[in-house]
């Protein structure tokens, strides 16, 4: 091996791992079939991740198009609002926590 070989600087961040090993949230090989998008109770963050991976550029490319993601929000309700918008854009049922 040459001295230029690429090496890992440390443990990977969990979202970087999950977006690869969960992909679209569906296990397509194997006898056990699961669709993570059917799972209602996944933590808000993980649902955001999977929905965003599923919809890829369609949703993702515009995250920073407005200033919504370039500015830090003042209130605490930004996450719920984003979840609601994302679910609506992805054609998913809007979750109860985010409806209010």
């Amino acid at each position, binding site marked *: *091996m040459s001295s*230029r*070989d*690429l*090496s*890992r600087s440390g*443990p*990977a*961040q*969990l*979202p*970087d*791992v*999950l*977006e*690869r*090993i*969960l*992909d679209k949230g569906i*296990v*397509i*090989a*194997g*006898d*056990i*079939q*699961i669709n*993570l998008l*059917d*799972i209602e*109770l*996944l*933590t808000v*963050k*993980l649902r*955001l*991740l999977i929905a*965003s*991976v599923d919809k*890829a*550029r369609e*949703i*993702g*490319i515009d*995250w*920073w*198009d*407005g*200033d919504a*993601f*370039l*500015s*830090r*929000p*003042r209130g*605490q309700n*930004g*996450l719920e609002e*984003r979840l609601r918008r*994302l679910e609506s854009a992805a054609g998913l049922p809007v979750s109860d926590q985010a409806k209010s």
Partner: protein
Amino acid sequence: MSAKGAYLYGVVVAGDLGSEALADQPSVDGGHAVRVVSYGRVAAILSDVSLDEFDEATLPARLNDIEWLERSARAHEGVLERALDAGGVVPFRLCTVYRSEEALGQFVVEREAELLRVLDRVAGRVELGVKGLVARDEPEADTDTQSGTGLAYMQERQRRQADARQRAQLIRTCADLANARFKESAIAAAMMAVRPPDDNAEEAMFLNAAYLVRADDDAVVHEAAALTADYAGQGIRFEVTGPWPAFNFVPPEVAS
């Protein structure tokens, strides 16, 4: 005793990797050993799992448990990284489970030719992730624009909208330029979805790309450092992750 299933991590060229190289590597359930089983010219990396734990009925609840998910995800990825470092691997998704080792073996045998083709493509190569990140503005203090004159309020609003459009345009240009530069030194490129920032995160992601490169080629790493230096004044930086197994460069039909 509950029924046993077989959990598939990935497929390697037979002979590239032995079970002994994985002896100290935790399996997804933390119990059963990770093994390498040859089927002709390819070999499967697998471990036994309890079907009580890895079944359609119970997996949704397990996957809702962030600690279970992280432990399993890191074990899965850890096994694949060992295989990657040994020469090359076709990675499978988390929770690829067969009801028996025979069923897993049958799947691998049926797809030997396709698996060998992909193994040939990824041999000696790795996936690098590159994230483009931009500093977010401080939360703006509540100004008195609402109570000012109507005209002043409108002018202030238009100014902010124009700034936001200009900034978005700068980021778009930067993303295109960076991607073009990375692609020059890569064998293949893939775009992943940009992830939304946490509310209080100081940076927002605007590029989430993956590049297939030779395992001894660090050009993307140097390019990312150079671009970060070029764009430092704009609060933009590029972060390289990996080397990863070539998750984004395995045709979906091979693993289905």
